[in-house]
């Protein structure tokens, strides 16, 4: 097992793992995140990987863009707080949509 450390400001661990596995089939064991902002992620690779594979993994990580979350989706572990505007949605529409989400969550939690 080889471990490659990479630092990413924003990431989605599920998407990043998929991108790495697509780029290096059979060579990526997985990714670990340690829940500390300044601590790099670990990319776990098979023992057999070459230096060029490590470079590929670094490139994939560097080009990783966390997918936008649709409205109403709750953040998953490893994801940064998300949510983006729908096409044609104004800022006010977005704020209203988020307020509705908050209301729904409060209802589910019995806070409202």
């Amino acid at each position, binding site marked *: 097992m080889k471990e490659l450390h990479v630092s990413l400001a924003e990431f989605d661990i*599920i998407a990043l793992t998929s991108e790495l596995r697509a780029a290096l089939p059979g060579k990526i*064991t*997985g*990714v*670990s*995140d340690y*829940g500390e902002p300044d601590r790099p992620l*670990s990319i776990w690779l098979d023992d057999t990987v070459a230096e060029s594979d490590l470079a590929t993994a670094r490139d994939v990580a560097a080009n990783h863009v966390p997918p936008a979350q649709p409205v109403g989706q709750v953040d998953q*572990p*490893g994801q940064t707080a998300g949510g983006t505007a729908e096409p044609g949605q104004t800022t006010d529409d977005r704020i209203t949509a988020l307020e509705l989400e908050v209301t729904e969550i409060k209802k589910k939690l019995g806070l409202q």
Partner: protein
Amino acid sequence: MAWTTPNTPAVGDVLSASNYATYIRDNLNWLLTGRGLIYSRSTGNYTTTSAVYVDVDGTNFSFTLTNVGTKVFVSFNGFLQPAANGTTANLTVSLDGVDQPDLWFYWTTLNISTNYQVCFSTVLTVTPGSHTIKLRWKTNGTLTLIGGTYLATMAVMEIG
């Protein structure tokens, strides 16, 4: 501070201050505080997508004991959260880099709506000397060990 094998006094020997400090005071202090190590994660979740065993946290959930005896008690408690239904989870510890058999796994797959309490304990047989014990995990999906809302705590202690 380390354990010092006590001397064997002969009849008529006088207990010196030096011997008292070395063989009695320091050893008692070591017995009280030196035989165990503990880490509690109070903030920051861990997440992995690794399909084979990897360290949960090679810095903090990693313990190096220099033991005199041959038995080390290991215990862990924490909460796991899967990112999707059908997630598998396995936890164990490694001893000097060698993974032990699974110490915890769920008998079926995990569901996203639930946090699963994990607790296990085991006794490792070792040779006297320095040994490193690490918490390890693997999954078929995405797994989070909660480190804030619930404490994740691991302790290792020489017991004999």
